[in-house]
Structures are given as C-alpha cells and as structure tokens.
C-alpha cells in the first residue's frame, strides 16, 4: 500500500513539475482568464452604458396630424425623449398624396409623421 502511495506521489510530483515548467499552458489557463475577466465585467458594461446613454439623450420628434387628438394617443408618446407636435391635417388633392411630409422625414427635419 505504502509502495503504491509512494509511486502515486512520485508521479504526481513529476506531473506538477512538468506543468509548472510548461509556461504556454500556464498562460493559456491562468493569465488569459485574468486578462479576460476585467474585459468582460468592466469594459463591456461601460461600453453598453454609454451606448444606452446616447440613445436616452436623443429626442425623437413626432408630428401628429389630425383634427382630433384623443388623450390616450398623446399619453402613449408622453416620454421624456419624445417631442410631439400636434398639427391640424391639411388635404391637398388626395389623402394618399403625402405632400411635403415625405421629404421632411427623409431630410431628417422630423423623425416621424403620424396621421
């Protein structure tokens, strides 16, 4: 029993020495995780936070055209990042012709037009 324990101890000792001297494996299993954890837990959240803050700071301008503006509809857009303009609807020739609104959205003068 003691003989086999002695052998196991000898083999284990040899394995440890070999492992310690294998710097490539040590780098792969210890150093790389040490470098990766700060990246995963510090840098990524900071990047995501700044992305979210950028989105929060943007104000979306929406123009609602119509003759009646129910309160329920207004409440739906009542966020701090949303700016709503209520405009009376004006018809040119037909309802299907968007008039100047299409170009305003395209030129980013306004974010959306609802009617």
């Amino acid at each position, binding site marked *: 029993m003691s*003989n086999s324990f*002695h*052998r196991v101890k*000898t*083999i284990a000792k*040899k394995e440890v*020495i*070999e492992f310690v*001297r*294998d710097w490539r494996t040590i780098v792969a299993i210890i150093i790389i995780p040490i470098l990766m954890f700060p990246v995963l837990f510090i840098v990524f959240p900071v990047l995501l936070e700044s992305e979210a803050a950028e989105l929060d700071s943007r104000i979306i301008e929406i123009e609602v055209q119509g003759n009646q503006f129910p309160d329920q509809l207004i409440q739906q857009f009542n966020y701090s990042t949303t700016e709503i303009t209520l405009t009376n609807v004006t018809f040119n020739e037909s309802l299907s012709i968007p008039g100047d609104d299409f170009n305003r959205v395209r030129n980013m003068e306004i974010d959306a037009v609802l009617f």
Partner: protein
Amino acid sequence: MSNMAHESLLTVSNVFKNFGDVIALDGVSLEINSGEIVGLVGSNGAGKTTLLRLMSGVYRPSRGSVTLADGNQVHNMRSTLGVVPESTGLYSRLTAWENIRYHSRLYGVSDETSWKRTLKFAESLEMEDNLSRYTRGFSRGMRQKTALLRALAHGPKVLLLDEPTAGLDITSARTVRSLVKQVRNEGGTVIYSTHQLYEAQQVCDRIIIIHNGVIKADGSPQELMSITECNSLEEAYVNLTQEKARMRFEDKKSDGPLGKLWNKLFKPKLPDKTELMGVDEDE
C-alpha cells in the same frame, strides 16, 4: 568468464505472440545467462523488438512463459530489468537527472543510490555536465545516453537495449558500446537488439539470429560461422535467413461472400500490369 556466466537468469519457454492475424513470435525458447552480452539480430519485422518487449514485461506472451531465475514471471519483477526502448521516452521539461531520478524513485530506489550509480556511468558516457540540462534540447546521442543512465540507475540485473546505436554518430555509438561492455565486466547481463552484424560481432558474446518470428541460430559469432561454413558473419546470416520474409498481413476477409464483396469494394489495388502495357509514357 566466471561461473556467474553459466547461471541462468532469464528463461523464455516456447513463447508465441500474435497481434491479430500476424504471428510475431512462433514458439521461441531461449535462456539468458548472467554476465553475457546477448545480441538479437534480425531484419526489420523479424520479431526482435517483440521478443525484447516480452522479456522486459511490456508484452505478455499469447502462449508460453518468460520467467526469471527465481521462477517469477518477468512482468512481476520489472525492477530487476533496465530497458532502453527504441524511442527514449524522456520527459522534455525535466532535466536529465530528474528523468533518471523519477524512474529510480518509481522502483523504490533512494536518490542517493541512484545518484551514485548515475555519476559512475555518466563519467563513462561523458554526460556529467549535461545531467542538469533539460532534455528538450538534447541531440539523439545525448537522449540515448540519458536513457541508458536511466535504465542503469536503479541497479538492474539485466539490461535490455533495443537498437541503442541506431541514428548515433560514430563517437556516441562507440561510447555506448564500451558502456555495454563495462556493464558486462561488472557482472551485469545485457540483451542487445540490433540489425548491424558488425556491431553484434564486436559487442556480443552470443548472437541469436531471429527470422520470421523463429530463432534460426544461437551461438557465439565463431560458432555461427562454423555451423554455416562461412567466412564472415554476414554470409552466415544470409545463409541462415534465406527464407523470404513473411507476409505480415493475411487477408482473412476474402474467405466468405461478404469478405469477397468487401475486398472488391475497399481493398487497395495496384494497376494491372496488362493495363499498363502499351501505354505511351507521354500520355
């Protein structure tokens, strides 16, 4: 030689060894006496390494037995043997001494004893300065010498060497040969596998010629030459091994209808000679 030379140390009795369909050893019997250098000579695939592995306890015979003088099966008494295999199997991230010490410790030999023995033989092999170096950067010769030191450090009764000078330069080969003689002169027994007859003649007291898994001759170089009535060992060897080397793989699959189908579909084929006849080389 002393009386020790006649004392039987290792007995191989009617040993058969097969690997699947390949019969590597076919009823081999021999006796190794203490204090002699026995050369195992044969062509590639003759069965030298298989016999050596059986004698070192790495393989177990399919039939027959390999026993030591005290009647123990050889695989139970590996500490009495020192083995240098064809590939040295050194740990590259350990120094030469650490490799040797590791081996000795596994055999239960104290560091002090193995260090003394190592130093003694390292001097003969001119390896003292390399003992503290990692084996990673060792040349083939240095690796072989380290493996020899490793095999000798625990004080074995029998030293088994599998082509110990293969790939070594002239100086290293000479050093290894002189160490082998030194071990014999100190009462050790060496079994030396080689396919170089010149080397066998120089080193060995007794030569066993093995061919196709069968022992063809056993005796001193002079005896082998006189048996065959040849002037050189090389001629004697050729005379004794005229039989064509065996086919290593028997095609058993071709027996049944399934086997025939298997062969038709998957057996590697060479182009038919008649197909090649008349084919222009430029085509």
